């Protein structure tokens, strides 16, 4: 029998769709009406049912692939049948049941060429087809432009070279970037965090004079620590004193933790990752320095194990290296708070009615007001400030 499954058109404006999940494995039987795959367009996510019964002989489009409407994505046939022969023979090109009937080209895209009058009724919808000269396609590929989105000025609305060159010159250029798995996860988590937690924010300024001195003392002893390491160490200590800041909340319980695992936000080319320093409250400053350095470098090389990316109880994010003075971070669920660290900078400060120069740094605490009220959150933040301004208290 042999049937070629094509990317179904889900709405008038759809030109392509992304396969998100295949629900049947290659080689497995499938029944007509049974869910076959999940797909997404720029507008919707939908589950598509099989239109015939048989064996899913071949999956042509992998998960994550973006496929133009009406292009083949899979072949269903009898067990053991040669899918290539079905493809070569054209098979039956089937529109899944949910797909609306192909609309006339004139309605969908006035500039597109009308379908040839001799086209058989079963042909894929011509509306999806955009005519372009070979040179226009070549030029578009060179420039990373999708020629199908370029208005055509040639005969029958064909996209010709000048259209592509003009499209390049246009200021209002847009590019569609497929959403990677990592981007998708970050997007989901950030949105979920903002939608489900009662996030509030406190800020204060820390005088880092003592921290600078501490770092110099360690340097003199050949021990290298960063200011961020000092912040991690002080925060870890403060968390042991404020267990509600080191907790999670579900519908029934607030769960406090006797261990402190500090997540440190690390920017990578693909997006944000948060490796975890376990038992940071039990570590010495040099130990934290060593672990954080190792984690940061392996994060950028994409060499972390999944374990190292989970289990955090509190997160610290530092954008000081980008000259950011202060910012509001979004809580990394299911934690109760996140500390945003700004740039350390020498500034004039009034001390004993004198103007003196001090290295100052801003801390910004975002906390979940469902768990912690404003006053205890303020005390927690002030405690971190105290520790940073008097690091001797760490001992």
């Amino acid at each position, binding site marked *: 029998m042999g049937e070629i499954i094509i990317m179904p058109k889900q709405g008038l404006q759809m030109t392509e769709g992304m396969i998100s999940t295949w629900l049947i494995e290659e080689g497995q039987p499938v029944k007509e009406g049974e869910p076959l795959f999940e797909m997404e367009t720029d507008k919707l996510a939908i589950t598509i049912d099989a239109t015939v019964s048989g064996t899913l002989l071949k999956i042509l489009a992998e998960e994550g692939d973006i496929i133009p409407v009406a292009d083949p994505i899979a072949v269903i046939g009898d067990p053991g049948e040669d899918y290539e022969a079905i493809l070569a023979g054209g098979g039956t090109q089937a529109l899944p049941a949910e797909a609306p009937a192909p609309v006339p080209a004139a309605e969908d895209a006035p500039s597109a060429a009308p379908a040839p009058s001799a086209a058989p009724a079963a042909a894929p919808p011509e509306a999806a087809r955009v005519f372009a000269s070979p040179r226009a396609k070549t030029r578009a590929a060179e420039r990373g432009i999708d020629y199908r989105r370029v208005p055509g000025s040639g*005969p029958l609305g064909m996209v010709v070279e000048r259209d592509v060159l003009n499209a390049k010159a246009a200021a209002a250029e847009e590019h569609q970037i497929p959403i990677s798995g990592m981007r998708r996860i970050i997007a989901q988590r950030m949105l979920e965090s903002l939608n489900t937690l009662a996030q509030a924010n406190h800020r204060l300024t820390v005088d880092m004079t003592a921290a600078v001195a501490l770092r110099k003392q360690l340097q003199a002893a050949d021990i290298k620590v960063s200011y961020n390491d000092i912040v991690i160490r002080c925060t870890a200590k403060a968390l042991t004193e404020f267990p509600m800041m080191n907790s999670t909340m579900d519908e029934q319980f607030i769960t406090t933790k006797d261990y402190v695992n500090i997540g440190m936000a690390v920017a990578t080319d693909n997006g944000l990752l948060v490796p975890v320093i376990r038992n940071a409250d039990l570590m010495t400053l040099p130990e934290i320095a060593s672990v954080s350095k190792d984690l940061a470098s392996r994060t950028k090389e994409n060499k972390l194990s999944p374990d190292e990316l989970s289990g955090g109880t509190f997160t610290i994010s530092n954008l000081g290296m980008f000259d950011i003075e202060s910012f509001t971070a979004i809580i990394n669920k299911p934690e109760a708070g996140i500390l945003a660290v700004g740039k350390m900078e020498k500034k004039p400060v009034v001390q004993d009615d004198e103007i003196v120069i001090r290295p100052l740094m801003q801390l910004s605490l975002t906390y979940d007001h469902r768990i912690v009220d404003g006053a205890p959150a303020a005390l927690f933040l002030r405690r971190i400030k105290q520790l940073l301004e008097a690091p001797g208290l760490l001992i």
Partner: protein
Amino acid sequence: MSIKTYAMAIHDVMAEEMRRDKRVFIMGEDVETLGGVFGCTRDLYKEFGTERVRNTPISEAGFVGAGIGAACAGMRPIVELMYMDFTFVAMDQLLNQAAKTRYIFGGNARIPLVIRGQQGIGRGNAATHSQSVETFFMHIPGLKVACPSTPADAAGLLRTAIRDDNPVMFFEHKALYAGKGEVPDDPDFTIPFGKADVKREGTDVTIVANLLYVGRALEAADELAKEGISAEVIDPRTLVPLDMSTITESVKKTGRLVVVHEAHRNAGWGAEIASQVTEEAFPYLDAAPLRLGTAACPLPFNLELENAATPQVADIIKAAKTVLYRE
């Protein structure tokens, strides 16, 4: 350099080659005292005698065959046909004998023969005396085909033809004979076969033309330039061997191709070039290649109708704009 007419350039090369090589001789109708209908052999009999500038009866099949025999026997004949339309009288000699003898005899026989003469429109010579027939000789392997469009090309290509050990079909154009141009004085000036000449460089559209239509293509290019369209004009000069790489590279640059010739458009040599370019440079094409040629009708006697049947400069301009999607 000397300024010569196209006819003089041909005349002088034949004279120089006859001086250089005693095996070179001319035969044809009225080539002796009349000097050929278009004067290409004028007075040559005075220097070389009627043994080497021989009149023939009106018998193309016979004297073309005689030329092949003479070439086979070691001579280097130049056979003049009064009109290249008359090649049809001698088709078996040309396509079965001249083209194939070397192959059939395993390379033991050579045919260093030049068949030359004029063809084409311009004088209202009507259906059997105005044709452009070069395409016929591209189809059967074994013949080389040269089509000069300028006095210098005529001189350089004819010398190469005479010195070639294979049969060469040498197509001159009756409307080009009086045209003048610079011709190198070097008695060894040759133009290699299979080397197209870019007559004008351009970036927007490639126009391929031969013989009379090189000039018309250049005129069209001048007009197009006034409208900001930069046309590249290429004369392949020899159709066998054919320099496709120059043409293909040009089309890769410009993205558009117009082929214009006086030969009939249907199954003319322009179709061969358009097809090869499509095969070799498809991703570079912004429009389907266009062919211009004489309409599929016998050439009319009436000059106005002759014009109507053949591509004019305005037609070339229109074709160039068509492939550029400009109107």
